């Protein structure tokens, strides 16, 4: 490993490489807040647009797991460089995508590049920071923070510019990572050769996979709920979901002081509790949502670093163990997405119908004129129909068009009715959140059963 830059320059180079790692992890969830905009632009189905998220995670999982038995034969710096080039090109392609199939294809390529950059970056960061341990810690920090901050970052970029800005933003991060890698001469990092078996890292990786599956609830479902059902703008939604990364960062000092097994078990319990909190949301309550997301974030900040530390087993080879853990995490994400997507697809339309019926009941019983009741109800039906075609329903519009701004009784009815609809549809996500909580509970079980291997 020939890395001879002065300290400050080396830290800067390590920071740029870590930023590329963070963005590759963030990419698992970064487009979630842009899904409604993508849906509207490409005139597709829910399943179609969901592939923009799923394709990336499947590609990372398949590529990483496919490389587990091969990656030790390659030079890690070259693996990372190849990953950065592929990721950079695919990010530009995603930003320029003119139709959905092209975007999904580019996301597959992007996921392949991400897997290569993630597995190659571990030894590179070790070389740049001067020790394997410091490189591993930086990789874990970048991964945890990147995953947690993904939706909020995507939300801000989508609202400030457009969904294309998400991918346009990633390209320079990848380019800077590539320049840092080339400038660092870390490409001299040699291949690791065959090492001890990775079997002993399996329990920690199973835990990580399960926890990443659980995070689908906090990173995907909660975000969609806040934006698509509660009607917050992407930036406002990003502010709400930022409770998760902030709590994850706040929990880091606590994680370092706790015994490792307690940190893992406590983290899994907090994540599970936060997800139960999201499942039991009684209405569109930002307070309860922030509270729940903060618990999820604290759980993430406690459990993931310890498990990552165990999964990245130096004696088994950093690149190999990194490859396995990247694959395991994304398998967990894909598995949870595969379970939750059909569950949600079956629950939401029925909840929408129930919400519309309740809204009509509120309207018919409201102290407003007959000339407003039925027309507003029918316009609400139109708003729901357009939402099913991919738009976020504007529930206030039918009221405003019939004079709610000057009719206090109609305005009061609107406010009551919007709350009723949001509460009804919010509950449609309940079973999906419970499934995610079960993932976290399963991780807790694995951690307890394999406690020696999980924290060794």
């Amino acid at each position, binding site marked *: 490993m020939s890395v001879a830059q002065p300290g400050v320059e080396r830290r800067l180079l390590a920071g740029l490489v870590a930023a590329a790692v963070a963005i590759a992890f963030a990419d698992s969830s970064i487009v979630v807040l842009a899904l409604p905009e993508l849906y509207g632009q490409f005139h597709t189905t829910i399943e179609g647009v969901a592939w923009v998220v799923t394709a990336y995670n499947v590609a990372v999982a398949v590529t990483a797991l496919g490389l587990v038995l091969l990656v030790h034969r390659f030079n890690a710096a070259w693996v990372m460089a190849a990953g950065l080039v592929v990721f950079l090109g695919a990010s530009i392609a995603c930003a320029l995508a003119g139709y959905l199939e092209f975007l999904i294809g580019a996301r597959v390529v992007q996921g392949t590049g991400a897997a290569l950059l993630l597995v190659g970056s571990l030894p590179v960061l070790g070389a740049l920071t001067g020790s394997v341990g410091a490189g591993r810690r930086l990789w874990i920090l970048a991964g945890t923070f990147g995953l947690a901050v993904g939706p909020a970052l995507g939300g801000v970029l989508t609202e400030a510019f457009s969904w294309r800005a998400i991918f346009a933003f990633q390209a320079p991060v990848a380019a800077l990572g590539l320049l840092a890698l080339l400038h660092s001469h870390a490409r001299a990092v040699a291949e690791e050769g065959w090492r001890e078996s990775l079997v002993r890292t399996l329990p920690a990786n199973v835990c990580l996979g399960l926890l990443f599956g659980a995070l689908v609830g906090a990173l995907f479902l909660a975000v969609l709920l806040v934006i698509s059902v509660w009607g917050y703008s992407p930036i406002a939604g990003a502010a709400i979901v930022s409770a998760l990364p902030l709590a994850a960062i706040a929990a880091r000092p606590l994680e370092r002081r706790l015994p490792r097994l307690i940190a893992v078990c406590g983290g899994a319990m907090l994540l599970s*509790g936060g997800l139960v909190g999201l499942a039991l949301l009684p209405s569109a309550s930002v307070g*309860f949502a922030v509270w729940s997301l903060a618990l999820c974030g604290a759980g993430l900040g406690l459990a993931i670093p310890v498990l990552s530390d165990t999964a990245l087993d130096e004696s088994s080879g950093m690149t190999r163990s990194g490859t396995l853990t990247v694959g395991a995490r994304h398998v967990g994400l894909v598995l949870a997405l595969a379970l939750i997507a059909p569950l949600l697809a079956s629950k939401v339309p029925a909840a929408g119908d129930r919400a519309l019926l309740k809204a009509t*009941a509120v309207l*018919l019983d409201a102290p407003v004129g007959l000339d407003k009741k*039925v027309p507003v109800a029918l316009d609400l*039906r139109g708003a729901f129909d357009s939402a099913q075609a991919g738009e976020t329903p504007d529930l206030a519009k039918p009221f405003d068009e019939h004079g709610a701004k000057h009719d206090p009784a109609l305005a009061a009815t609107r406010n009551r009715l919007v709350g009723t609809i949001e509460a009804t549809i919010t509950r449609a996500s309940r079973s999906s959140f419970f499934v995610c909580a079960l993932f976290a509970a399963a991780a807790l079980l694995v951690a307890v059963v394999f406690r020696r291997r999980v924290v060794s």
Partner: protein
Amino acid sequence: MKGRLTFALAILIVLLASGLALVAAELVSGALNEPAPKIANPCEPRPGRTGGIDTTIQRVVLDGLDGAACRLHTTREELVLSLGGGGGLSPHHWTEQQLDAALRAGLLQSVDMAEQRGDIPGFLVPAIHSAIKKIPIEQLIRGGLSLQDLLGRIGQ
């Protein structure tokens, strides 16, 4: 060292307790209750407002919708959402003719109920019945007919 560990464990216990407090607060806020309102059975009478001509007409129309929904084995809300050719929530099992007949029958019945409550004078009932058989029924339900229109039709 031991003090730091105890402090860290105490914080973890507080965090876990806050998770339990969250769930308790949500349950107290009605997390397990179905959000109001409940969809009423249209075949059972429900309380309505009285007083004033407009309020009486509105109650007659709403009770008429209940009667029609009861006849068509659906809810008042689903019936309303099926108006205007939008198709409603799900494919319904009635034809336009059956809907028209059910609405008129429901309205005739609700006029009789209004008479029994004393909301409508008895001498007007035959004329209103006659008007209900002639008026464009959906226009009435959408509130597109004014009282003047209605009185004009009763006079015809």
